[in-house]
C-alpha cells in the first residue's frame, strides 16, 4: 500500500518537474547539485557566456535523492535537458547503454583526461567514454595544527609513526580525543577509512583490478590488513564512539576537541567555515618509510550530452569548455574540496585543498575499491562493506571474519 502511494506521488512530482519546458536554442543543464546553483549562475555560466557569446545556458538542478529517478523519466519522456550531470559508474553506464547519453569519444577536450579519470564514465572495456569528468574527491586525514604544535608533533609518514602519534595525544593531550571518528553511521568506516588507508596495502589500481578480474579475493592479506589497522584504532576514538555520528565527529573536530579527523576533501569547506584553528592534512601512512604511496582519488561528477538534444553543436562547445583550464581553475577554487580531473596544471588557493591535491604528484591515484563493476551483484556489497568496517572497529568481528563475510557476498 505504502509503495503504491509513493509511486503515485513520485509520478506526480516528475510530471511537475518535467513540465518545466526547455526553451529552444538555450542549453539546459541537469544536475543534482542544488547547493551549487548560485555558483553556476553567478560564476561558471557567466564565464562561459563571456567566452562564447550567443550560447545561453541554464542550470536546472533536482534534489540529489530524486535526481536519478526523475532524470530517467525525463530522458524517457524526451523532456530532459541538453547537458546531463553524470553520476559515477553504473548509473551513467546504464544510461549510455540505453542510448540516453551520447558517445563523446570524438570530443576534442577528452584528450585532457587520464584513463583513471575517465574510468568512471567509460564502458567496461574502456573503449567508449560518455561523460566529461568534472570533479573528484580525495581522502586523507585532517589535523588540528594548534594541538600538534602544542604537543610538539608532526604529521606521520608511516603506520608506526601514526600509532605513536595517537598514543602521545591520548596520554599527553589532556582530554583531547586523538581520532574524531564514530561508527554509528557506518559509511565513513568504508568510504573514508577502508578505501583511504587500504590502497597502500593493495597497491591501488593493481589490487582493485585484480579483484575485478577475480585474481584476488577480499580474504587475501592485502585486503584484510586495512581491517587489522582499523581494529587498532578503537582505543583512540574516544568514549562512546559506537554511538557517535558523522555530524558528531565533524563537531568534535571543529570545536578543537579532537586532533585528527579522517576526511574526505569535501569536509574542508565545512571546517573552513566552522573551525577556528589552523588545519593541515596528511595522507594515509605507508607501512615503511619510502614505500610507494597510494591515495583514494574518487571520481564523483562528470557531464554528458543528451543524444536527443536539439543543440548538440552548442552542447559540445560547452563540454569542451568544461575540459579547459579556465573551468578547472574556476571550479577548484569555488568549490573547495572538489578537484578537477583534467591534466591541467592549476593553482588551488586553499592551502589544505592544495596540500591534498599535491599528493597526486608523489602517489598513485585509485578510486574506491568496489565502485566499478563489483557492486553489480545481487546483494548490497556497499552495505556489506559498511557493516564490515563497523563490526571490526566495534570489536564484534575479527578482521579476517569481516573480510570473509564481504567476500561471500562479492562472490555471489
Amino acid at each position: 500500500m505504502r509503495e503504491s502511494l509513493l509511486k503515485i506521488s513520485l509520478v506526480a512530482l516528475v510530471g511537475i518537474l518535467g513540465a518545466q519546458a526547455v526553451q529552444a536554442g538555450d542549453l539546459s543543464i541537469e544536475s543534482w547539485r542544488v547547493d551549487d546553483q548560485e555558483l553556476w549562475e553567478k560564476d561558471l555560466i557567466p564565464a562561459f557566456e563571456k567566452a562564447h557569446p550567443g550560447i545561453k545556458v541554464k542550470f536546472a538542478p533536482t534534489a540529489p535523492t530524486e535526481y536519478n529517478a526523475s532524470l530517467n523519466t525525463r530522458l524517457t519522456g524526451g523532456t530532459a535537458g541538453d547537458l546531463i550531470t553524470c553520476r559515477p559508474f553504473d548509473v551513467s553506464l546504464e544510461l549510455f547503454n540505453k542510448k540516453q547519453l551520447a558517445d563523446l569519444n570524438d570530443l576534442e577536450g577528452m584528450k585532457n583526461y587520464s584513463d583513471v579519470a575517465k574510468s568512471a564514465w567509460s564502458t567496461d572495456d574502456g573503449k567508449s567514454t560518455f561523460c566529461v569528468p568534472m570533479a573528484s574527491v580525495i581522502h586523507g586525514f585532517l589535523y588540528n595544527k594548534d594541538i600538534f604544535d602544542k604537543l610538539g608533533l608532526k604529521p606521520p609518514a608511516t603506520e608506526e609513526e601514526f600509532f605513536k602519534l595517537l598514543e602521545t595525544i591520548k596520554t599527553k593531550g589532556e582530554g583531547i580525543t586523538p581520532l574524531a571518528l564514530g561508527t554509528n553511521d557506518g559509511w565513513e568506516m568504508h568510504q573514508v577509512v577502508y578505501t583511504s588507508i587500504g590502497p597502500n596495502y593493495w597497491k591501488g589500481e593493481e589490487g582493485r583490478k585484480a579483484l575485478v578480474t577475480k585474481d584476488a579475493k577480499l580474504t587475501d592479506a592485502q585486503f584484510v590488513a586495512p581491517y587489522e589497522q582499523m581494529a587498532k584504532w578503537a582505543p583512540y576514538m574516544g568514549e562512546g564512539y559506537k554511538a557517535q555520528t558523522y555530524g558528531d565527529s565533524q563537531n568534535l573536530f571543529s570545536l578543537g576537541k579532537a586532533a585528527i579527523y579522517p576526511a574526505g576533501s569535501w569536509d574542508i569547506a565545512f571546517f573552513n567555515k566552522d573551525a577556528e584553528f589552523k588545519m593541515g592534512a596528511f595522507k594515509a601512512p605507508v607501512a615503511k618509510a619510502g614505500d610507494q604511496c597510494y591515495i583514494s582519488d574518487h571520481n564523483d561528477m562528470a557531464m554528458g550530452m543528451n543524444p536527443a538534444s536539439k543543440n548538440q553543436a552548442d552542447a559540445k562547445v560547452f563540454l569542451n569548455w568544461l575540459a579547459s583550464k579556465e573551468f578547472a581553475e574556476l571550479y577548484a577554487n569555488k568549490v573547495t574540496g572538489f578537484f578537477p580531473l583534467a591534466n591541467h596544471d592549476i593553482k588551488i588557493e586553499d592551502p589544505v585543498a592544495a596540500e591534498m591535491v599535491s599528493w597526486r604528484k608523489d602517489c598513485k591515484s585509485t578510486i574506491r575499491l568496489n565502485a566499478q563493476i563489483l557492486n553489480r551483484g545481487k546483494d548490497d556489497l556497499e552495505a556489506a562493506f559498511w557493516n564490515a568496517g563497523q563490526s571490526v572497529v566495534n570489536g564484534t568481528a575479527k578482521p579476517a571474519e569481516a573480510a570473509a563475510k564481504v567476500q561471500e557476498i562479492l562472490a555471489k
Partner: protein
Amino acid sequence: MASRSRFPWHILVFILPGFIIYTLFSAWPLLDTMFLSLFKQASSGERVFSGLANYQELLSDPHLSEGFWNALWNNFKFFLVHVLVQNPIGLLLAALLSLKGLHGAKTYRTLIFIPTLLSVVVIGFTWQLILSPLWGITPNFLKSIGLGTWFQPWLGQEHTALLTLALISVWQFVGVPMMLIYASLIAIPDELIDAARVDGASAMRIFWQIKLPLIVPTLGLVTILTFIGNFNAFDLIYAVKGVLAGPNFSTDILGSYFYRTFFGAQSSLGSPTMGATVATVMFLIILMGVMIYFYVVQRRIHRYQL
C-alpha cells in the same frame, strides 16, 4: 406501510463517498500490491508473470531470507518490549489517573500524552541527543549520581540498540494505551465500586477483582493495536539508524527491510516486485495476528453488561 418496499437509496448515498475513497486509496492499492508481487522485473523494465516465485525466493534464498528472518525476529522482539513494558505502564498510569481526588490528574494526563503527538523525527533526534556519549545529558547525569561506569553508547551497540529504540518508542506511545484504558476505567459505574467498598473490599482488591475484569476487552484491543503498530513500524528506526538499520542490521525490522527491498539501499537497486512481495508478507503477518486475536482470544473474553 407503503414506504417499506422502496429501495433505501439514502443508505447508498451515505455509504458511497466512504466506499469510493476507501476503495481508491486503500483496497485497490493493496490488491495492486498483491498482484505486483506475482511478477518479476527484468533489467529492461519488462514485467513477467512468475506466480509465487518471489515468495519462494524471499523465504528460502539466503540473500533475501537471511535479512527477512532477522527483520521478523527483531520485529517480534520490538513487539514484545511494547507488550511487556508499554502496556503495563499504560495500565498503571491509567489506574493512578482514575483515582478519585488525585491532584493535577489532567496535567499529568496531558503531559504523558504529548510525546505521542510529536513527530518521530523530533523524538528520534531528541533521544539521540539525550543518549549521545559526547553531548548528551545521560553520561553526566549518571556520573553525578555515581553510576558513571554504567553508561554505554546504547544506540550504537549491536546487543543494546534494538532494545533502546523499542524503549524510546514505548516512551513516545505509552500515552495511547493509557488513554484507552483510562477511558474504560472511568466508564465503570460508581455503584459497583461503592457496593464493593460497602462489602469491605480494599482498594487493591477492587482493582484486581472488579475493575480489571471489566477492562479486559480494552486490554485486548490495546494489545492488537500495539501488534499492528509495531509490525508496521518503520519511521523511528529510519530516523535514528537510517536505511541500513545498523549496527550490522541489528535494528532492522520488517518496515526498514521492506524499504531497502523496494527502494534499494547503497549499491543494491530497488525492486518494486520484490518490495511488493515483502509488503504482502507483512500484510499477511498482521492479518494472521489480527485473525488469531478475533477468532481465538476475543471470543473467550468474558464481557459484563454494565
